[in-house]
């Protein structure tokens, strides 16, 4: 099956040399070699033990044309009702300028389609692109790197206070059925700048089966601030493998909220490297699964330098026969003294058949640190249910209300109000809450 991608790579390399920068070709070549050497992961690998990717690796995925007819109003339910935001729309993986907002380059923010940037529109890519997502971190990242073409580049200039959030909308249509989509994004927030970016993976074809393999690299300069929200609402028959690699310089603040409610199988690898002193990293997550869905979140926080703080809360709500995997690594290097790291994973099971595999992994090599973790898997609190019922709320509504409350507690960490409200709305809709 890897063969189809090798062929795609060779075809693309021959055709692409003309319009891609010289430095990129060897990078892509190395990534392809790496992917060819390792192949896709198997369940024998610890990292993929609970998430069998055979349905992905055994499907002969095609390339999507990206020419499906999509109207602006088809996207209304995905864009939070804020026309002033900077929005880029990708249909079946291909950038569609006519569906996005204007004003991609204004007031210290520069947003480009990666395809444009690669074909040489003067955007400097080499300093950052492929620098933060190592090809040996996963075969999927290697493959994505080898096939780099579509995606977005967001650059927020030094000391820019970005007032307009940037929203990347990756939407699939029924024409993506049977196709692999491999977006690649780069977010650069330079020193002293402040920005908000939302990445949405959504579908107009709820029954279609496709595969998204996406990689986003994020770099924060000194004293930069970024709120990065990731909303994964793929078709429930789709496959989603995502990687987010974050690189932070001193005094920067990065907050990520990762919502996963779509996909037959969805995996997100989030790597945050706290590579300088006094860095703050907040990772929040919410996954809501039903039916036979499998949602896997792997996070790795690298405390490489002293005086950094990381705070992580992931919550899951599982129904039906669905499964969730949470693996949270916190790696504290010997020099990373005064590290303050806290990790929490809480799961709510709504059905007897739902299952969670949760694993915190703390590897601490410094002695003067504060690191804690906790994981819970449980049901709704009987006393809280009685409390709500004693106020007149019928049993089933009380369950939904408390389930919603469980989710809303972590959604409250999203500071961008329209996104927070939309997430609350999505969860209420999914749970059937009042």
């Amino acid at each position: 099956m890897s063969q189809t991608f090798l062929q795609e790579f060779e075809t693309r390399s021959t055709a692409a040399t003309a319009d891609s920068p010289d430095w990129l070709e060897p990078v892509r070549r190395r990534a392809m070699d790496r992917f060819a050497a390792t192949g896709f992961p198997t369940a024998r690998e610890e990292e993929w033990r609970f998430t069998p990717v055979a349905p992905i690796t055994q499907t002969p995925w095609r390339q999507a044309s990206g020419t499906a007819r999509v109207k602006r109003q088809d996207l209304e339910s995905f864009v939070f009702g804020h026309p002033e935001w900077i929005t880029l729309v990708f249909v079946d993986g291909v950038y569609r300028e006519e569906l996005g907002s204007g004003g991609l380059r204004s007031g210290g923010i520069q947003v480009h389609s990666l395809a444009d940037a690669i074909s040489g529109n003067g955007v400097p890519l080499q300093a950052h692109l492929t620098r933060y997502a190592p090809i040996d971190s996963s075969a999927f990242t290697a493959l994505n790197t080898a096939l780099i073409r579509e995606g977005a580049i967001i650059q927020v200039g030094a000391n820019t206070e970005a007032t307009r959030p940037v929203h990347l909308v990756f939407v699939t249509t029924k024409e993506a059925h049977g196709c692999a989509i491999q977006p690649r994004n780069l977010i650069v927030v330079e020193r002293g700048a402040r920005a908000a970016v939302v990445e949405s993976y959504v579908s107009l074809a709820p029954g279609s089966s496709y595969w998204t393999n996406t990689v986003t690299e994020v770099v924060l300069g000194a004293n930069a601030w970024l709120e990065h929200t990731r909303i994964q609402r793929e078709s429930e028959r789709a496959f989603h493998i995502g990687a987010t690699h974050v690189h932070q310089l001193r005094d920067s603040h990065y907050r990520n909220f990762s919502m996963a409610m779509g996909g037959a199988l969805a995996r997100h690898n989030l790597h945050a490297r706290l590579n300088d002193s006094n860095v703050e990293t907040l990772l929040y997550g919410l996954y809501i699964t039903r039916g036979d869905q499998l949602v896997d979140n792997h996070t790795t926080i690298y405390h490489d330098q002293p005086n950094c703080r990381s705070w992580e809360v992931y919550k899951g709500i599982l129904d039906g026969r669905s499964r969730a995997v949470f693996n949270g690594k916190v790696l504290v290097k010997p020099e990373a003294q005064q590290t303050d790291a806290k990790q929490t994973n809480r799961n709510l099971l709504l059905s007897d058949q739902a299952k969670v595999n949760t694993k915190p992994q703390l590897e601490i090599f410094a002695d003067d640190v504060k690191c804690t973790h906790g994981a819970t898997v449980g049901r709704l609190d009987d006393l809280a249910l009685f409390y709500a019922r004693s106020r007149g709320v019928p049993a089933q509504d009380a369950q939904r209300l408390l389930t919603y409350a469980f989710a809303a507690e972590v959604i409250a960490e999203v500071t961008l109000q329209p996104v927070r409200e939309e997430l609350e709305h999505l969860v209420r809709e999914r749970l059937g809450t009042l």
Partner: protein
Amino acid sequence: MEAALLEIQGLRASAGDTEILRGIDLTVRAGEVHAVMGPNGSGKSTLAQVIAGHPAYKVTSGQILYQGRDLLDMEPEERAQAGVFLAFQYPVEIPGISNAYFLRAAYNEIRKARGLEEVDSLDFLDLLEEKLRVVEWGPDIMSRAVNSGFSGGEKKRNEILQMAVLEPTLAVLDETDSGLDIDALRIVAKGVNALRQPDKATILVTHYQRLLNYIIPDRVHVLSAGRIVKSGGKELALELEARGYEWLEEAVTT
């Protein structure tokens, strides 16, 4: 005399294998305030929770009639919809939803059950404004998560706010006064006294007499070992304050 609003007859209830209520008889008429007192472990909180339908307790015999209906046959939410309210001794924290959201959900469920139209959040805010005055609170409290991170006193006050909004026909307050300072106590009393209407009744479960300085009960009952061992007028509370509970417990055992 008014017809009985609540009639408890021969009520026995257990938690697990332990029998806590061992034959309670109590009649509460509309317009009355009853105080249920007694030492720790006498069963007074259990009585309050059984009236509200707490699932941890199993009624083994006896009955409770509320407005002539078999209360024990009703789900907790049906009791609330019919006008029964329990102010919890330990109100539950619900992080994630605001006080306003929770209370409006409750208010609307009760209205729905009575065939009334639900109110939207704006109309509800108007109603709240008036009720917040009862508990001497500003509107900020409504955007905080339900009881989450509230002090003990704030939680109790929040129960009184919920009671003021839901306007129950029968309010049962389970040791709402314990742990309160004088100001909070006065606010609780104000909430209860506001509900003192000819068609409503209140049962105050309390360990101490001091709340009864602010709310004058019509009847006082003393519970011991799961039974009412003495009933009287408001002067009984003062006697208990002066003499403690031991003399009554001795009277029962001998």
